[in-house]
């Protein structure tokens, strides 16, 4: 790897392992993610995707190995790194009694966002939240909540965005808009995205690289098209099923 490529690496994972008692949730992961790349973590339930995401974000301590983000160890420099990353997952909720604007204001302050009102306004336009900005979250539909969660994840213009099932429970129209927005966001900001998803067409569309995980290990990796060709299948879903059902 030449120097230019080395400088482009924003996430470097080295011998990453996590045990929960006797259960080995993640075993000896090694990979790196370059700037502007979108990496997908794919695998069946229990493959270790969310555990890996948590370790990448520094909120779960590995049993062994290390994660470097922007050339800093994520555990010893978490405070600095946390300003450069953000996270969205429809299953981690925001306070439901507060309005969309109040939630975004709180997280804007937490991430030290400049010109916060302007930023909230811009996000509300981009993610079509204008009409619901002053409505409490608990009154929103699941799809609207997902967009709010994404707005929270983009409030600090993160250099690295972690997404866990970002379009789960969205209708095809809104899911497509979100994907388009993520593509545009990446194009404009050169952000890196790490995504855990079960939606194969989404992964094929958004991701430049895929890590296929099974029982805590990476069983294969590469660009979606390469994997499809390699397994002689017609799409990523078939590749996924082949890997998942192989003993």
């Amino acid at each position, binding site marked *: 790897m030449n120097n230019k490529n080395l400088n482009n690496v924003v996430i470097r994972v080295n011998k990453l392992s996590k045990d929960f008692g006797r259960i080995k949730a993640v075993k000896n992961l090694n990979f790196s993610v370059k700037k502007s790349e979108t990496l997908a973590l794919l695998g069946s339930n229990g493959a270790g995707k969310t555990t890996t995401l948590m370790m990448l974000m520094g909120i779960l301590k590995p049993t062994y190995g290390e994660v470097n983000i922007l050339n800093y160890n994520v555990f010893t420099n978490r405070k600095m790194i946390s300003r450069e990353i953000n996270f969205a997952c429809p299953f981690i*909720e925001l306070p439901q009694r507060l309005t969309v604007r109040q939630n975004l204001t709180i997280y804007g302050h*937490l*991430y030290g966002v400049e010109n916060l009102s302007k930023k909230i306004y811009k996000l509300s336009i981009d993610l079509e939240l204008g009409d619901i900005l002053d409505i409490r979250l608990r009154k929103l539909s699941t799809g609207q909540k997902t967009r709010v969660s994404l707005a929270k994840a983009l409030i600090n213009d993160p250099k690295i965005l972690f997404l866990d099932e970002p379009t789960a429970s969205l209708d095809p129209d809104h899911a497509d808009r979100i994907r388009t927005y993520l593509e545009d966001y990446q194009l404009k900001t050169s952000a890196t995205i790490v995504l855990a998803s079960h939606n194969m067409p989404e992964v094929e569309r958004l991701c430049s690289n895929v890590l296929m995980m099974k029982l805590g290990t990476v069983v294969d990796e590469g660009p979606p098209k390469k994997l499809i060709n390699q397994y002689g299948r017609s799409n990523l879903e078939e590749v996924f099923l082949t890997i998942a059902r192989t003993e």
Partner: protein
Amino acid sequence: MFLVIRRIYAMLLRHLYLFLCSWPRVLELVYWPFLNMTLWAFLSKYLAENSNIFLMASGVLIASVIMWDTLFRGQLGVTLSFIEELWSRNLGNIAVSPLSPYELICSLICASFFRTLIGVGGAGLAAFLLFDFQFPNVGLGFLLFFINLLIMGWALGLAICGLLIRFGLSAETLAWAALFFIQPLCGVFYPITVLPEWLQPLSLLIPATYIFEGMRLTYFEGIFEMSLLLKAFLLNLMYMFCGVGFLLLSYSYARKHGLLLGSGE
């Protein structure tokens, strides 16, 4: 430093927004301290008419109940502010954000201060307006009593937050019940000499014991005993250190065992 203050401000804003849109929460804040004070004020009035000792130190029971509420609300302010994050399943988002555990602790303490000020301050004002109640004039003495009670409440509250991180909402009952376990021991309404002898050494380990003794001494003897305040303060320093330490250890445990994203379940 500006960013640290901004993050703490963000967490306070979160609680302010919650109160602004939830009147039952505001009502709860002042309801119990007011009710408690009223009950004891009437009892106090009755006892003063029938007992020389209460006639001598009119207001001692109201002072006791207001000070007890300061301790209780101080503890509850910390734990309830934290429990709000578990109820709303928001801890994962906070854990990923730049808010450090120390800043979280500061925000919980500030939130508790304002909650207690509103709740107990309201009850104190009502006691003054309805029952002509006033604390004895001993300079800053009573203010220092109150500060010590708050510190003790915060220390216990932070330790309970540690348990909440470790065990989730199954430890929620502790938030309401923990302090009542020590209430009989710290002599809120009576001197600890009425306790069995074997229990008295335990009482002496509780900072509030010295505060309530000091308060009664001021009422009955007109003396403000600095040494009692000092003992309470030294014990409080130790408990605060333990409370903060326990919460930080629990946070570290949660990071090791992956409890931060799943909290609340």
